[in-house]
């Protein structure tokens, strides 16, 4: 059972969820390149220019660990990364659990994604603002500046660490992606977990995904927001457990 975090955080996102599955499953957690403890040198602008590169990373982990019958649990953008990975390695994935998925964030004709292209440009700009202070304080830590040990401590305590350049890149790739056409290729049972009042992936998008997936199921959660794995772990766990019991 493999858990993939979304944009903005790292595998810490799963800390309240994965322990519930460790008895019955081999649990695999990882950080996407640019997040958490991932080796920054694995970042490659060409490879990671689209979600396929991130999906290829997932497929590499699955191959490297020689995993079969993988239950892939993807949050946010990792839902689509899972869809692409399952297509790349069809024999190795058993089912998909997609939490707050969106195959396209930007509106397109009659398709409602929830955002305009301008909104996304603004997001990329605002990320610059939010990282202005980042590099200044983190650069000395990375370079092992010994006269400010409190910085190192801060670093080890910090959750959801992301490299600003790579986070910005990931944001662009994520929010300009369009994977609507890839949904039909998924031949394995797939669960869409939809939050209430999700400001990033609204309900209409979640139902769109479930309808396009040949073996898609749609489950509406009571949890609000975009991160039920943090805000409502029990409800998330029982929804996944129920789905796994049926498949």
């Amino acid at each position, binding site marked *: 059972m493999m858990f993939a975090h979304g944009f903005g*955080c790292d595998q810490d996102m799963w800390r309240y969820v994965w322990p519930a599955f460790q008895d019955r499953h081999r649990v695999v957690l990882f950080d996407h390149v640019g997040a958490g403890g991932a080796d*920054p040198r694995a970042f490659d602008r060409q490879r990671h220019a689209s979600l396929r590169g991130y999906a290829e990373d997932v497929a590499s982990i699955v191959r490297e660990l020689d995993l079969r019958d993988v239950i892939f649990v993807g949050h946010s953008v990792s839902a689509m990364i899972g869809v692409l990975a399952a297509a790349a390695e069809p024999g190795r994935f058993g089912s998909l659990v997609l939490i707050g998925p969106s195959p396209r964030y930007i509106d397109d004709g009659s398709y409602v994604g929830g955002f305009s292209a301008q*909104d996304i440009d*603004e997001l990329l700009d*605002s990320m610059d603002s939010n990282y202005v202070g980042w590099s200044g304080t983190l650069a000395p830590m990375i370079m092992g500046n010994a006269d400010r040990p409190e910085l190192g401590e801060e670093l080890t305590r910090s959750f959801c660490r992301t490299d600003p350049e790579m986070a910005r890149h990931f944001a662009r790739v994520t929010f300009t992606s369009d994977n609507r056409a890839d949904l039909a290729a998924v031949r394995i049972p797939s669960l869409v977990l939809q939050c209430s009042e999700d*400001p*990033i992936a609204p309900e209409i998008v979640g139902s769109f995904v479930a309808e396009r997936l040949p073996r898609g199921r749609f489950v509406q959660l009571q949890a609000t927001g*975009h991160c039920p794995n943090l*805000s409502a772990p029990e409800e998330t766990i029982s929804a996944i457990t129920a789905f796994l019991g049926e498949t």
Partner: protein
Amino acid sequence: MAQESAEDLFEHAPCGYLSCSIDGTIIRVNRTFETWTGYDRGELVGRAFRELLTPAGRIYHETHCRPLLTLRGSVREVALDIVCASGARLPALINSTQRLDEAGRPQTVRTTITEATDRRFYERELLRAGRLERDIAVQLQRSLLAGELASSKSLCVDARYHAAQLGMEVGGDWYDVFWLQDEETVGLVVGDVVGHDIAAAAAMGQLRSATRALALTGLPPGRLLDALDAYAVRHDVGRMTTAIYAELHTCTGDMRYAAAGHPPPLLINPDKDPEYLWDGRSAPLHAIGNGSCRSQATTRIETGGTLLLYTDGLIERRRQSLDLGLEHLASEAGEHHALELGPLLTRLVDRMGDNFSDDRCLLGARRLD
């Protein structure tokens, strides 16, 4: 002494102050926030805080702030815009902490909002200045490396340069090929100045020019590197620069070369295994005292043979030793030596190294019939 009531401290604090339930619904706001946003509390209480943000701000808040709040209990100095009743935007810095109940469960989230109009403007200026500096450095480097490389009917030369993908995307690597006085010998150079900024590009330009000037005085390679070292020390430029300098006689294929702390040249002669030239080595610039006498060595490039000079970015790769990098380069170059020089270099630079953190520079010279 004048007394301050807690109520007044809250209501008229010099920052917007609001309290939300865990799901983000506004429970209480202070007077300052009402004044700044133009909403009154009746319009705010019961609404979700994120509704006061721009769509972009909502994404950031939902993907960064709320997870951090849950995991760490607080977020600090987040830059977000608040959309006021008039539709105007209030650039703000936001700090939030979770308030726990007695059992340690999160109860409410308290948020202060500080106006950050000037700060945001200043940050934009900083970012713009940073981009400008990068553009200048890239242009400077490109102009320094511009110009044709010396070649002739009997010598084909070509180079590839890939800048590192992160950071300034400008490097201190350089390559150069030029004719010496006799018009039959070429000087070949590859160097690596530490750093990825304008200073590195400028130092590279100085050392590149100095090498050319020194080469025309007729100094042999070892002495040339001594003189370059003395120049670098005297003018305090290019600390720990590594470089390789070779003089190749285009008719005979005889070559003299010397390397200052630089990875060894790779020689691929026809019908022979690729061979690294480990002789003629000495320390990087600035690393040894004055009056040193750097060693040099000689070899011969046969007709059809190829010499490859490169920087360490080409042979370094994460989780791989340097030896393995050298081995990899030699086997790739040997296997594909039948390719024309240009395609060979392209192949090597694409296959080798780690395109993340260091520049990859590769210079090739092939003797023709």
